[in-house]
């Protein structure tokens, strides 16, 4: 085990090279609905139990099924209303289980990125080869069902190994060249894109996917009221919009159809989306578009600036 994963160097927020988003936007805003499949009876992993109760663990399983049966359409209609294309963090087995959901997202030209095969299969304990095969399966499944060359990764249930990001980038290159495996949502260290060190040296970027704005963190971990969650989203946006005048920032709302889509939570979420999209200088976009724009325009300057700051006062 390492003291530091070594993915990123210290890079202070002040005096970075200025990022300008398309059309002069101050904030790149993206919404990342997780569309997940949790198994009722998954195999045991030696490092993490999938469910807190003995089989059948109804509370966790059934509410997630609710998200697919009921919640998905509700959030999708809301994103349609405010002109937002979702960037789907996908349990790729869902392509087999619930192709109707995949079709609805495809019709809207939403992005699909890999969130593993099932959210009840953890990376913990996998050999490098096993993890590589699992990642490859997930990326091939997305391509087969959607034609998309998977660009992003959020490890299943945020379970990682020391090789996760390397493997994702390498499999992406093997399958799709520079179009595949170019960004990660697994790191929470910044409000702007940052280059990530990989053993392959590939240009690879961390696109901020906020843990703090994540509805599951708000509703399950912090247990906050829907109105307070909505207010936090607006406040988060206000500051990123203000700072984005100096150098472009990123705001992400990661969601789950089994949290944000409840009838008693939709109003607060809608008010927040209406507020954000009511501003002029917002680039409403997707994870892939942010990653590509950064790699094409700012990656080299960012890397040079980071290098110049190491050890400097």
């Amino acid at each position, binding site marked *: 085990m390492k003291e530091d994963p070594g993915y990123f160097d210290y890079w202070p927020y002040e005096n970075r090279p200025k990022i300008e988003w398309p059309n002069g936007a101050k904030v790149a805003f993206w919404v990342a609905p997780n569309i997940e*499949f949790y*198994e*009722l*009876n998954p*195999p045991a*992993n*030696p490092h993490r139990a999938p469910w807190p*109760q*003995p*089989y*059948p663990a*109804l*509370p966790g*399983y*059934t*509410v997630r*099924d*609710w998200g*697919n*049966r*009921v919640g*998905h*359409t*509700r959030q999708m209609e809301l994103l349609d209303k405010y002109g937002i294309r979702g960037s789907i963090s996908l349990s790729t*087995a869902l392509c*087999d*289980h*619930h*192709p*109707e*959901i995949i079709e609805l997202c495809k019709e809207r030209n939403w992005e699909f990125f890999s969130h593993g*095969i*099932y959210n009840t*299969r953890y990376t913990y*304990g*996998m*050999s490098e*080869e*096993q993890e590589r*095969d*699992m990642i490859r399966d997930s990326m091939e499944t997305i391509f087969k069902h959607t034609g998309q060359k998977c660009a992003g990764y959020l490890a299943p249930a945020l379970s990682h190994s020391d090789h996760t990001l390397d493997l994702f980038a390498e499999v992406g290159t093997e399958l799709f060249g520079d179009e595949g495996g170019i960004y990660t949502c697994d790191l929470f260290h910044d409000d702007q894109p940052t280059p990530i060190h990989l053993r392959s040296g590939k240009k690879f970027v961390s696109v901020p996917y906020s843990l703090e704005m994540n509805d599951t963190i708000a509703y399950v971990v912090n*247990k*906050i*009221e*829907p*109105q307070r969650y909505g207010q936090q989203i607006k406040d988060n946006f206000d500051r990123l919009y203000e700072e984005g005048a100096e150098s472009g920032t990123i705001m992400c709302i990661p969601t789950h159809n089994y949290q944000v889509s*409840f*009838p*008693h*939570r*939709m*109003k*607060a979420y809608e008010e927040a989306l209406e507020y954000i999209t009511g501003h002029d200088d917002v680039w409403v976009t997707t994870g892939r578009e942010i990653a590509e724009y950064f790699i094409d325009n700012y990656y080299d300057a960012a890397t040079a600036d980071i290098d110049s700051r190491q050890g400097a006062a």
Partner: protein
Amino acid sequence: MALDKDYFDYPHRSYGMDHDRYEWSMLSDRKPVQWPDGNKLALWVNVPLQFFPLNQKGEPFKVPGGMTMPYPDLRHFSLRQYGNRIGIFRFLKAFDKYGIKPTFAMNTRLAETNPYLLNTIKDRGDEISCHGYHMDAIHWSGLGKDAENELVAKSVNILRELSGQDIKGWLSPAKNESADTPDLLAANGIEYFSDWVNDDMPYQFRTDSGELTAMPLSTEIEDRFVINGNMHSEDSWVEQVCDAADFLLAEANSQGGRILSINIHPWLMGQPHRIAKLEKALDYVSSLDGIWHAHAGEIRESWLSQQ
């Protein structure tokens, strides 16, 4: 380091669910439902009437709301009984004021030991469903199928005898089940249950003794989850209930009948400092146009007749 090869087997990776209890179906794809008299939103107010034994076994876990202190945990025992003595009568007054038709999910042990309370509910003519034998009689696979069958039969049959009702509905203590529970419920004449919180509308659920109807009783909006679990204020709970009613009514106007189900505990919302908040929520919801006040069994029958 590596995981066993079978960790990478995906035996259920195919169309539909990873089990055979019900069909995969998105709510938005289903035929719209019409409630009686042109109403849009069925209001199902569900009131658990619960008995938490002082000598709790806690198998396989301590039931939420149950004893947490060393024996004898008088604080929790008596506070839960408060609901059956005081809180419920505040509830009944509020229900009558706002025209609510409550459904009472009753522990059979409470019906055995509190005939006055049972008779009060019986005399109102409201529907009674079975909430298991008592709150510490948790249904789980460790019981074994035969013992669980005896538990279901005892709970349902005694409640039938005492209440004079045929008892068609079921809510497991803590909404916990064994792998066999749905089969045993159907075998004992239960027609609907509310343990699976995976839909906002009823759906048919397979058992080896015919089909049950899964009736949607959301956990996430219930008083205990929001106020005790999330520590939200009473005012926030009222706001969440009102927002849910508004949202579901709007959805019902475009997609067909919907159900607002609210599970409320007399030992929680029946407290003097909370009852006015419950009244406020009931006042708001019952003032909306298109509300159908109905017992759970009536909602099920209306829905089933349209399938």
